[in-house]
């Protein structure tokens, strides 16, 4: 194999590696769960949240102005 062919092979391999790396990473990223999924799952359960809210809310009065 000539030096020129070796360089070409190495370059191709490097490019293939990069493509695989980013391609895989991209796939992983796409498959990764929403980083707030657990928060959303719980906080959009309005019935459950309202039960918490009813327990926590206290009466208060506006006072100034």
């Amino acid at each position, binding site marked *: 194999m000539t030096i020129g062919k070796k360089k070409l092979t190495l370059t191709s391999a490097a490019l293939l590696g990069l493509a695989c790396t980013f391609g895989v990473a991209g796939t992983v990223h796409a498959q990764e769960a929403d*980083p*707030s999924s657990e928060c*959303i799952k719980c*906080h959009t359960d309005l019935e459950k*949240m309202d039960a918490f809210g009813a327990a926590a809310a206290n009466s*208060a009065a506006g006072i100034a102005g």
Partner: protein
Amino acid sequence: MRGRDTYGVAKDFVESNHGQIGCINCHKGHNVGDKDNAHKDMVKDPSEEGGGGVCAQCHEDITSTYKDAMHYKLGGILDIVGTITQPNKMADTLLPAAWQLDCNDCHASCGSCHVAWPAVAHGGLLDRHRFEKTPPMEKTCYGCHGSRFGGEYRGLLGATADVHFEKLQMVCSDCHTANQLHNTKVTGQTRYYNTETARCESCHPDAARPGKSRIAMHNAHPKDTLACAVCHANEYFNCTNCHVSLDIKEAGKIKVIFPSDPLVTFKIGKNIDITPNNPYKYNVVRHTPAKKDSLASLTYFQAVLTGKPGPVDLISNYDALPTWNSASVHSITRKTKQNSSCNACHGHKELFLTKTDLEPGDPKANQKVLVNEIPAPVKK
């Protein structure tokens, strides 16, 4: 008034621009199912820090001024308390603790107008975490201004509702624009800061042309003599004889309370807060709920709570500021008792703040507000 919708988040919010940022990018915490671990290190109000918090990343144009604004810093209250308590040092008193327990509840972050009820109403989401570009008046403005301003505007306090509410259902932001609210930089202890604020003549230009108005009474009074409210406000609510105290009946729950006496009246006084936005010689004046010994109980409680009594004369500079102050009364109507004719006002001493309205022990600064010469009746 109480907060509500405390924790529930609408699904359509999750899909909105703000929702797509993701919960933990603003609130921190952890994306796990266990409640305690999820909320560990969580930031309840991510808009609080520095007058904008995370909002500053996209709304820097607003947060750059809001960090100094009155609603964020409560500078007006701080300036006044700092002035009347001189030369006492705040650090030697319970005032910083009382501030945290109570006064600071009216401090507003971005979120406490646009996302949640203000702290004074015990928080809670306004509408399932949906962002409200224009804060709903009843839930947010009235959280802090629901007593005198909100009360008289709706006719719940004083003589009548404001015509802007009764006939037009106008909301606060129809006059008090977002740009003004985000820009009220406090520059002193006067009630009217030298910042742009709501102007009646923005909608009523004819009224601002004394001598050229279609209305005879407007022409009769030279420019910058009378604030609009002098002729167009109705009797309004005042607080007097206020004494700050602490309610310590329930262990571990100290509340600041301030019982006071009500006074419904209408008084025209000299305007000592003259600024470009309040240039009038006379304005209506409202009694500020303060007495020389209003904070006396804090000295007592300081001794009880810390074992070391605070300054005996906490409001030692009481004479410096008046307890009758220019007011933005929100009970405006076109026709009022005092504008029904020239002599419905001229010659009527009871409409003016005079020495007979003052009480023994009132601050010396009140003298500057008195109207010493009542306008004589107009001869027909």
